[in-house]
Each structure stands twice: as structure tokens, then as C-alpha cells.
């Protein structure tokens, strides 16, 4: 026993020491570290012969990147707010950016370090969430619609009502974040997605509670897998991810319901207090380079707000109506703005009630 244990211990110790040496011995000086916090499945990561963007950045600037992922805007916000994590770069959606600007959680960017910002299309320059374009550089945009499996539905689910349809009970997935979930209920009831009217919000909550009986579960990134293997019939999600799923399973399709929907912009920002602000800006610039932007967009299938990247895409992608919808469809879509604190709290409370019931 004793001999076995001492052998085991020395093996573990040797391994630890060897690994410690090999990890820091190869490069003498300390590398600068950049911490990036991004959505899951939201960057070209080297799988399936794509370009590994993070590795490319590390090599080009001789730095180390720590890359973590989150599933919802709210999760990212909570972790940053808690003080338990430190990140330099985050990529929130529009409404969350304006909330973070209001709460002084973001740094103003030095655009001297981001020359590629010149490629931002005009539509994305003076946005509601960042009126002077001082805090953010857009990464992607897209619409929200319903991903559905043609073999499992009886008709094209071109109304949000399909997500409440008894005949699909047990085969419907739903957003597990409050803002997107309420957004759907708001469109279905004909309200603005930015309503602050308490009665309207409560009506939406009732509708979402009612929905629970037909739902299979609430998801975010888990949706890819579930839709691709036919685990569920229909689910609301983002257009770009729908295209990714459709490439894996040809029975899948995507539709933006007639009641209208949400159009969102996700943009890159630097977190307040970042110790690597300049490097972070270089990272943002790097992400806007034509080759890098193209690799990301081709991998994640979202729509690009950058002219240089758009021009570099193939014709098939440019003409894909899911990724680049026409004006008529966009006119039916609304974008989220940040809500007053009491409305945020009300939605959060009601959402908690919905999921615990």
C-alpha cells in the first residue's frame, strides 16, 4: 500500500512540475492577457476547418487570450455586476449596451486604434443604444423568428401563435431569457416590445405562463443540438443560428412571423476598468478586418454590419433572405431599447414567477 501510494504521489508531483515548466518555460517573458467574454457559438473557432480567430489574434499580437462564453445578456451583465469576474471585451446586444452605458460599466473607445470602424455601414452608425457611437463597434445583426422542422409541423408557423399550439405540445422550445421571451408575447398581443405599461407587461406574463403547459423546455445554446437531431418541432431563435442549424439538418426551416419581430444588433465593447484597453481596441479592430470578419460571419451565419466583410461574402450568402431580409420584413421588426429600472425589475420578477411555477 505504502509503496503504491508513494509511487502515485511522485507520479502526480512529477507530472505537475513537468507541466508547470512546459507551460511557462517555452516563452520567457510574460505575455499580455486579454479577456474576452462572448456568446456561445459566436466566433469562428477552428472547428470544421474554419479559421481559429482567437489563435490568429494571439499569434499576430503575441498575447494570450482568455475566452469565456455566456448564454444570455442578463447572465453576462450579472457576472460583470457581481464583481466576481474581470473581462476586457464583451459583446452585448443593443438594449444591454445602453443599460451598461447608463450604469457606467463601459469604456469610451479610442477610435485611433480601430481604423476598421470606417467600414461600419451607415445604418449602424448612429444607433439608439449608443447615439454617438462612442462605446461600441457593431459585430453582427439579425432578426428573431421561428426555426421549425418541416416534417413535424402541419403548416408553416408564420404566427407566434404556433408556439402556443396544443398540437405541438411537448415539442416546442422557448427562449430562456426574459427579454426575448417577453418580446414574443408583446408582438403576439400587438404591444410594443419596449412597453413600460404594467398592465401590458402583466398580460404578457400571463400569456407566457399559459405557454408553459405546451413547452418541452426553455433553452439558449442547447437549441442547436435539440433542433438538429429532431428532438423538438419548433422554437424561436436568431436568424443566423437558424441558418447554422439548417446546414446540419435539411428538414429545418426559418420564418419571421407575420405579427413582426425583433431586430437586434450585437456590438463589441470594452468593460470599464479594463487593464488592457488598447489591446482590447486592437482586438475589436482585428475582428473588423475583412478576412477575420468573413471567417466569423461564414462560421456563425449572422448578418454583418461591415461593408468590407459584406462585399467579401459569396453571392449565395448575400442573397439569402433569412440572413439579409428585405425592407418589407424589416419594417415589421422593432429593436429593443433599455427599459427604466422599475420595468426591468417587474419583468425580472414576473419571469421568475413564470419559470418556477
Amino acid at each position: 500500500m505504502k509503496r503504491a501510494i508513494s509511487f502515485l504521489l511522485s507520479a502526480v508531483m512529477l507530472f505537475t512540475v513537468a507541466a508547470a515548466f512546459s507551460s511557462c518555460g517555452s516563452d520567457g517573458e510574460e505575455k499580455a492577457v486579454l479577456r474576452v467574454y462572448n456568446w456561445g457559438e459566436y466566433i469562428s473557432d477552428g472547428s470544421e476547418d474554419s479559421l481559429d480567430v482567437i489563435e490568429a489574434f494571439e499569434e499576430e499580437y503575441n498575447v494570450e487570450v482568455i475566452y469565456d462564453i455566456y448564454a444570455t445578456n442578463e447572465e453576462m451583465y450579472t457576472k460583470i455586476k457581481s464583481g466576481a469576474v474581470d473581462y476586457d471585451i464583451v459583446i452585448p446586444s443593443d438594449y444591454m449596451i445602453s443599460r451598461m452605458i447608463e450604469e457606467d460599466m463601459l469604456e469610451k473607445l479610442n477610435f485611433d486604434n480601430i481604423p476598421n470602424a470606417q467600414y461600419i455601414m451607415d445604418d449602424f452608425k448612429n444607433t439608439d443604444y449608443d447615439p454617438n457611437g462612442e462605446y461600441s463597434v457593431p459585430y453582427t445583426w439579425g432578426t428573431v423568428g421561428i426555426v421549425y422542422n418541416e416534417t413535424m409541423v402541419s403548416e408553416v408557423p408564420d404566427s407566434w401563435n404556433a408556439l402556443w399550439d396544443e398540437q405541438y405540445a411537448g415539442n416546442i422550445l422557448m427562449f430562456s431569457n426574459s427579454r426575448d421571451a417577453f418580446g414574443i408575447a408583446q408582438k403576439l398581443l400587438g404591444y410594443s416590445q419596449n412597453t413600460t405599461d404594467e398592465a401590458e407587461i402583466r398580460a404578457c406574463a400571463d400569456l407566457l405562463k399559459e405557454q408553459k403547459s405546451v413547452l418541452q423546455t426553455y433553452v439558449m445554446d442547447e437549441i442547436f443540438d435539440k433542433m438538429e437531431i429532431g428532438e423538438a418541432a419548433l422554437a424561436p431563435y436568431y436568424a443566423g443560428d437558424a441558418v447554422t442549424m439548417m446546414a446540419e439538418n435539411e428538414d429545418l426551416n426559418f420564418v419571421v412571423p407575420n405579427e413582426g419581430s425583433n431586430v437586434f444588433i450585437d456590438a463589441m465593447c470594452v468593460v470599464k476598468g479594463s487593464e488592457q484597453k488598447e489591446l482590447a481596441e486592437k482586438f475589436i479592430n482585428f475582428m473588423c478586418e475583412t478576412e477575420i470578419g468573413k471567417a466569423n460571419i461564414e462560421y456563425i451565419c449572422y448578418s454583418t454590419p461591415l461593408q468590407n466583410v459584406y462585399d467579401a461574402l459569396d453571392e449565395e450568402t448575400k442573397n439569402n433572405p433569412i440572413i439579409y431580409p428585405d425592407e418589407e420584413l424589416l419594417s415589421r421588426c422593432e429593436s429593443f431599447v433599455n427599459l427604466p429600472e422599475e420595468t426591468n425589475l417587474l419583468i425580472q420578477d414576473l419571469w421568475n414567477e413564470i419559470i418556477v411555477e
Partner: protein
Amino acid sequence: MGRKKSPLTAFLTVPYLVWMAIFVLVPLGMVLYFGFTTAEGQFTFQNFQSVLKYGDTFFKSIRLSLVATVICLVLAFPLGYIMSRMGEAGQRTMLLLIMLPMWMSFLLRTYGWMTLLENEGLINRFLELFGIGPLSMINTEGAVVLGMVYNYLPFMVLPLHSIMIKIDKSIIEAAEDLGANGFYVLIKVLIPLSLPGIITGITMVFVPSVSTFVISRMLGGGKNVLIGDLIEQQFLGTVYNPQAGSAMAIILMVLILVIMGIINRFDSEEMEGMMV
């Protein structure tokens, strides 16, 4: 035991006590502080009032984990008994086989069940061969209970086994000789003699079950929220509210103390033996 009360030796506990004070007592004190104050630091009961509306979630957590504990006990009791009557080599092998899964990450094992229970999963594929199903098993309360039973069953088997090997075979034989039937032996001899093991097992299954958030998240989908999920959400989830989260944690601790107090008034000395 108290033979040599050298004051010098007693001082050896000081570094340990200081460590435990800073990293166990102070953090628990901070939970109490956050639970009873507002964001501005004023004393309040508001946090507890705001948690009251999640009463159903508390009941659900307790209900599911009690069911899981009872199932564990029912499954583990015969297993522990059978093992305790095996030869030495057999016992050694069985202990190894029971402990092996415990040493693997419980995330991986729970993930294994996730893939088994899916609508398109292996179990439903298998049932399909017989024309049954598909049954929806994942994202149900049943799946959550299954996850608890699966993950914590060894915690029930091990203490039961280690108490049952101490029960002398001749006691059972004596009872049988005196005309007691199997059921009577079980009720009057086996269960009373294994009581300390039963109590330890219940503690070791119930506490992690009632406070889990991983099992409910992975096997219950977003639909079966337990108290652990709610606490996690307050710190790393949807809204940073350490005040509400601390209040929930305090209620959870009190509930566990009350329930464990009902089940046992056990002597901490009993447990030392169980840990080895």
C-alpha cells in the same frame, strides 16, 4: 483520551482555527449580513418577504429530494445487506464498483443520463423496437429525481454497508431460531441495528439533493426550477441580487437544520467512523 493536556500541543489547533474563522465563519456571517440588509446596508426583513413568493419552489425542492432520499434508502438497504454478507474479496470488489462512479465527475454522469433520456435518446430508440413510446422522460420531475438517486445512491450504500458488517450474523440466526420470520427480523433486528448508518445515509443524500442546481438544470430543463437554481440565479444568473440570494440561502440552511433535526439528533462522534 484527555490524558495529556499539554497546553503547547493545544496551540497546534490555532492556525486551523484562524483559517476556519476567516474562510468559513466570516463568509457565513456575510451571508447573514446580506440577508438582513438592503443594498444600501440598512437592516431589513424585506429580503425574506420577497423570497416568500417562492414558497412553492422550496416545497418542490424538499418534496423531490425527500422522494429521492426514500428511493435511495429502499434501493440501498438490500444492497448494503447483501454486500455485508459477502466474503472479503467480494466486499472489496463491490465497494470498488460502488465507489468508482463517484470518482468520475458527476457532470459527466448526469450528462450520460441526459443523452439516455431524450426523446430521440437510446432508451426511446430501444422502446421503439417494441412499439412503445416515445415517452417524454427528459425535462420532467421524474428525471430530476432519477438524477438525484443516481448521483447520491453510493452515499447511502457506503454508510449502510459499513454499519451492517458490524452486525453479528449470530444475532440474526438467533432471532430466526426463536421463530422470527424474515419481515420480523428486518423490522426488529436489522433496521434498529443499522439506524446510525441509515441516518448518516439520509443526511448525505438529502442535503446535496435539496440544494442542487446542476441536476435540475441538466435533467429538468428550464421547467423544473429548484431552490438551488434560484440561489444560483441571484449570484451568477439573470440578476445580481446577493441580498435576495442570501435570504434564500439562510432559509435553505434553516430548513435543512429543521428537517435533519427531526430525522435525527445524532452525535457528531458517530460520523468520524463513517468518513474513513
